[in-house]
Every structure is written in C-alpha cells, then in structure tokens.
C-alpha cells in the first residue's frame, strides 16, 4: 500500500468516525432524561471518589510516606486517563449487547473497521461526568501540591495521561478479544474496571510483594498512573523494581496495545468463523 492510499484511507475512516459520532451524540441528546442523568452521575461519582479519598486519608495517614496531595495526583492522572478512554472506547464493553441485538453482525458486513463501528455505536455521554470528576480532583490536588510548573513536567504529565488511556484501551481490547472468542466472559470488563479503579489509586509501595509484582508485570495497573506520577513527584528512587520503570509507561502502553490489537483480531476472526 502506498503512503497516499494509506493517508486517503485514514482520512476516510476519520470522516466515517466523525459522522457516526455526531449521529450518536444527536441520538443521545434527544433523550432529556439520559442527558440529565449523565450529569447527575458525574456529580454522584465525584462525591463517591472524594469521600473515599477523604476517608482513606483521614483514617489511614501513613500511605508509604506519600502525602494526601501526592496520592491524589495518582488518582487524578488515573481518572483523566480513564475519562479519555471512556470518551473514545467505552463502547467495547457493550459488545455483548450489540451481539444480542444483532447490530454487531451488521457491523461485520459494512465497509468500515468493526472496531470503529463499535466505538461510535453510541456516544458515551457519561464521559462528561468522568471528565468533570477528573478535572476537579486534579484542581484540588494541584492546589495542594503548590508546584513550580515546568514545560518538562507538563509534557510528562500529558504523556502519562495519554499512555494511561492507551493502556486501558489495550486491556479492554484484550477483554473484548476474549469475549468475542468465548462468549460469557463479559464479566471481565467490569473486573478490569474495578481492578484499575480500585488499585490504580494508591502508591504501589503500600501493597505486599505479590500485588506489586502482579500490578507491574501481569496486569499493568501501576503503569496507568503510579509509575509516571512517582517520576513527576521526584519519588522515582522509592518505587519498587527500580526508577527505570517510571520512564517506560509509554513503551509499556504501546507494547500492551500490540497485545490488545492481536487479541482483538483473533477474537474477531473466531467470531466471524463461528458466524452465530
């Protein structure tokens, strides 16, 4: 394939995505109740998260030598990454429903990538709520940290958020691949959500060795926020498995994306072959 055709193809796909996303958004806005609830959800979720944080920090002061503001930065980066992921790709979780409705099968025969059609099948209104939470929590924690802003720091944080989102996408793709190959395993999606949501918020140091290893080498939860944030906070020396890990989050994200892409393709192929 020449560069020109690749570019043209990418442009066409982008156009399809834009049109589909806009149609999805219009559809969601047509329902007043849904729209209102998306905002209510943001607020409720916000209360839950902030309350959880308050409880943890007031009751358990010693979090491996991390201050409240510092731990909050871990959660904020994770939340931002999560809301980016939700904005673009949360519909992967809807695949079992799409299959049930027969919509997924119609995606297979249309001339656009199935992944794109799944992601644009519905506009993720709740991303609005998630973004609101993330922004608030980031604001609170930055006011607590009183930082000197340097370009390097900002760039590093942005990179951390992006690679966190990519990691979440990669893991969701793995789950989607498994779901396509072995229907009935859709509980993996919510499992991923809870594991990242619950365990990605803390400094890895607080966990026993088994979990540290698991969250670094098996399910890369710690790379979503903890490792890069430790670097930004100047705590690189204290992380498990050496300071080098604080720099490699983007590499880990890309590697996992490769795995996720492979899992997705394998899953899709076996779904097609079985044909249902």
């Amino acid at each position, binding site marked *: 394939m020449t560069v020109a055709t690749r570019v043209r193809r990418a442009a066409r796909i982008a156009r399809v995505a834009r049109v589909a996303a806009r149609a999805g958004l219009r559809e969601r806005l047509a329902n007043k109740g849904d729209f209102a*609830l998306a905002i209510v959800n943001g607020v409720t979720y916000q209360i839950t998260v902030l309350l959880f944080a308050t409880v943890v920090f007031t009751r358990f002061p010693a979090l491996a030598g991390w201050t409240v503001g510092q731990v909050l930065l871990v959660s904020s980066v994770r939340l931002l990454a999560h809301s980016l992921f939700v904005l673009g790709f949360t519909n992967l979780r809807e695949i079992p429903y799409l299959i049930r409705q027969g919509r997924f099968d119609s995606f297979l025969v249309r001339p656009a990538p199935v992944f794109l059609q799944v992601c644009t099948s519905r506009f993720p209104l*709740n991303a609005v709520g998630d973004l609101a939470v993330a922004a608030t929590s980031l604001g609170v924690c930055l006011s607590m940290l009183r930082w000197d802003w340097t370009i390097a720091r900002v760039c590093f944080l942005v990179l951390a958020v992006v690679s966190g989102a990519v990691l979440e996408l990669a893991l969701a793709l793995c789950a989607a691949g498994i779901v396509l190959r072995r229907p009935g395993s859709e509980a993996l999606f919510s499992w991923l959500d809870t594991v990242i949501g619950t365990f990605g918020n803390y400094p890895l140091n607080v966990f026993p060795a088994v979990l540290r290893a698991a969250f670094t080498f098996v399910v890369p939860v710690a790379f979503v926020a903890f490792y890069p944030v430790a670097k930004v906070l100047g705590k690189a020396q204290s992380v498990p498995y050496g300071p080098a890990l604080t720099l490699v989050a983007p590499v880990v994200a890309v590697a996992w994306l490769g795995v996720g892409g492979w899992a997705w393709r394998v899953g899709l192929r076996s779904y097609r072959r079985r044909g249902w």
Partner: protein
Amino acid sequence: MTTRVHRLARIAPLAECMRGTRLATTGFVVATQVLLYAELWRALYAHTASVAGLDVRQAVTYSTLAALATTARTMRGATGESVKTRILDGSIAYWFLRPVSARRYRAWYGVGEALYSSAWVVGGLALGLGLGLVAPPASAAVAAVSAVSFGLGLVVLYCLTVLIDIAAFWTVSTDGVTRCYEFVQSLLSGALIPLWFFPGWLGGVAAGLPFAAGVSTPISLYAGRIRLADAVPALAGQAGWCLALAMVTALGWRRAGRRLVVLGG
C-alpha cells in the same frame, strides 16, 4: 392445572451453567476479588491497630465480604433476564402474554439469581476462610443471625434492582439510571467504605436509606460490628425495608403494565 412457578427459579442458575466460560470467568473474578481486596485492606489497616472498635482482622473481614457480596451480584451479563435486555431485543411483550404475570416471573427468576449469587458468596467466603484472610464468625449464633440477615438483604437488593430495571419502561436506555444506582448503592450500602467512616451527616443519610440493609447490616453482624444483642432491631429494620420496598415494587409493576399498554409491547 396448577402452575409450578417455583420451578422458574431454575432459569438463572441453569443459564449460567450452560456456559463453561461464564462459570470460569465468575470463579476467576470472585477468587481474585477476595484476594485483592483482602490484601488492599490489610495494607491500608497495616499501621492502624483498631478502627472504630474493630480489630484489623474484623475490619479486613468486613471489607472483603462487602466487596465479595457486591461482585457476586453483578455477574449477570448481557443475557440475564431483565426488562432492559428484553426491551432491547423486543421480546418484552411475551412477559405479558403468559399465564404468569411479569411481576411474578421476574420475582421467581430473581430467587434463582439470588441463590446462584449466594452460592458464589459462600464459595468466596470459604476461600477467604481457607486462606485465613477472613475471620470465621464468632459463634454459631452469629453465623445463623448473619445468614438470616443476608437473606433479608437479598430481598432488599432485589427490590431495588427491579425498581431500577422497571425504569426501562420510561427511559430509552437505563444505563444512566443503572450507573447512578450503582454509585449510590456502592457508596451508601457500605460496600465501598464501611459506613462508620462516614462523616456524621452522611452516616445519618445512609442509616435512613435502604441500601445499608442490603449489604452493610449482614456483614456488620458477621464481623461483629453489630453485636448479637443488637441483632433483633437490625433484623427488624431490614424486614421493614423488605416490606416497604416490596410494596413500592408492586406499585412500580402496575405502572409499568400501564406504560407497556402505551408503548404496545
């Protein structure tokens, strides 16, 4: 001709068992959840000797069981019988064309669902006990009382779930409502944070709402946060919620029937 409606309770467990993958996934999720949460709370409590009158072991027991109870309930996927999925695939009409009313059908299905998820809770509890992560109940009486309380809690949670599910008759998608309910429930039931950690006003709110009766009460009884002497008022409170919610749910179904008439199935 007598209907044998109680046999409808078979549906949910049977459907789950038809798929090996589903059983395997559920087992995986339950097992990892027990291990991960026990470790998390152990780590958090590591430097705190006693929390609100509970020792570390009791506190970890509470938190782990709370996580377990919540996970086991959310195992149903896209194929569970709910108003939401039936409206999505357009077959809700059949619920109203059978000699068992939609309400009774959903209730018996819910019984099966509750039994199935309870089996997983028991399994997860056994795993936790075996690995020494969860403390055994203090006495046989505590075990019995918390089992009863757990049963009442299931009824409360069933009613709440059905109320949310019925909302699908009015809203195009219940995702918003469901998500909202999940937050509120996980927060106010004490599944996420033990209720006694709440600031006073929120503790009051949580105590006045039915969510705590679903999760917090049985686990508090088990872990010893509610003493055996105080069990009777706790159980009475749960029973009261069961009754009140059952009535609201019945009302909800009546309205839903009328709503269906407008939509035409």
